[in-house]
């Protein structure tokens, strides 16, 4: 296959999903060899950096740009369908 961009149809979506799972299964199998090794738990520690709470600065042009980007709007509202996105 080539990697050039193209739109994907429903049938191809299914095969891409299966292919992705197969690739990840192979990768996971290869990674099984690290399973018995001891490592520390992965977490992020940030003792040295703390967030300074400042007063919010309002950008007057933000509102205009924000609404410019909205696909569907009505007055001061962005319109979105109910329940279609899961």
């Amino acid at each position, binding site marked *: 296959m080539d990697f050039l961009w193209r739109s994907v149809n429903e049938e191809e979506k299914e095969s891409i999903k299966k292919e992705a799972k197969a690739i990840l299964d192979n990768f996971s199998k290869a*990674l099984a060899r690290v399973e018995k090794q001891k490592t520390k738990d992965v977490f992020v520690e940030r003792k040295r950096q703390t967030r300074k709470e400042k007063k919010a600065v309002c950008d007057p042009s933000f509102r205009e740009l924000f609404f410019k980007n909205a696909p569907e709007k009505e007055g001061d509202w962005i319109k979105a369908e109910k329940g279609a996105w899961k």
Partner: protein
Amino acid sequence: MEIKEKIQKIKARKLTAEQNIKQFLDKIKKDNKRLNIFLHLNSNALDEAKKVDKKIKEGKAGKLAGLAIAIKSNINVKGLIANCASKTLSNYISTYDATVIEKIKAEDGIIIGMVNMDEFACGSSGETSAFGPIQNPSAFGRIPGGSSSGSAAAVAADFCDLALGSDTGGSIRNPASHCGVVGMKPSYGAVSRYGLIDLSMSLDQIGPFSKDVEGAKLLFDVIKGHDEKDSTTYENIEPNSNKIFTIGLSPDFEKLCDKSIYSLVEKKAKELSRKNGWKIKTVDFEHIDLAVQTYYPICYVEFFSATRKFDGRKYGSRIENVCGPEVLRRILGGSEISKEEYHGLYYRRALKAKEIIKKEFEKAFSQVDVILCPTVPRLPQEIGSKVTVEEMYGYDALTIPANLAEIPAMSVPAGKIQDIPVGIQIIAPQFSEEIMFQVASAIEKLK
């Protein structure tokens, strides 16, 4: 012209910022159709240049005064289109400046425009853009590498002085190598990602491109540092260098490469050692061959999570409806393996392997100051060539380890094979960017 020389010329007013920007805009107008690098130009660039000229006259100009800087289309520049080379965000206008952009503007750099890339940074070839593939100006007809393809190509094509890209698994260094320019990925936490449209938040970094090491260092010095809007950032800790380095070479990297590419890089390392009196030592890695397998489960899951905001309500179109195959593969794959029933099998296992690889680098850096290896294991293929997904992912086998270990790495031109540029990669310990730049300068001087 070297960046240092250009800055001196602009500051001495032998070249105005306006002239500098105009000559780039003329060149872009002439050649962009053929190379497909810029997606969107900054229509205010010339006006901004005039303002910078005024500041230069008053002696108030910043470090980047009058330089033209191209920006990867996944970094927000207020008022410009940040479409991530996708139909999802095809008309998305940034509502704010990313922290790196604020810093560039504060130093009077001029954003010349937004460049093409792999769609949502998903790719290593520059072919997955919804706006067509990017050409490699240094090897026409071949891939420029990716995903910051347009950033590397813009510098190589003389469309700008400097460029910004992002690097999650090699996306700065890979195209830098294929296009014959310098590209640098900072340590994780060295540069703020506030305003970067993320691919994989635990791995992404923003970094510079330049024709020379000095230019990359200049831009890195401007964008680095702690940002309260990105809690992963630190003030940089730059260790003093002893000037006499020990270079690490590893047979474990050699195994992953084309012979001719490794030989070229090894020759360069030996020349570097001889000329500077630096030692060479062999370092071993037990799990470096698992880097690609470690990277993709993390990337798939984090990308799936990152794309949930692209639901087509506040902006753009719903991503699954309009994206290309590679983006879809990562979304569907990420969705699948982050299910509760697979708990621990993919993402956590990959995080464990990431930690192991990170520890191996820490051990290696107790013996050597930097590690040298090729940036990309193969030469760039022709655009549109048929390759398997695994082969494509393998392109980043030598760059991914630095992302997993959260350490800095950069690519510097090493020479050519079949008239195609090949990069040498310098990998350094975390926050040792200063040492990395010193070694990169020394490699540059070998020319």
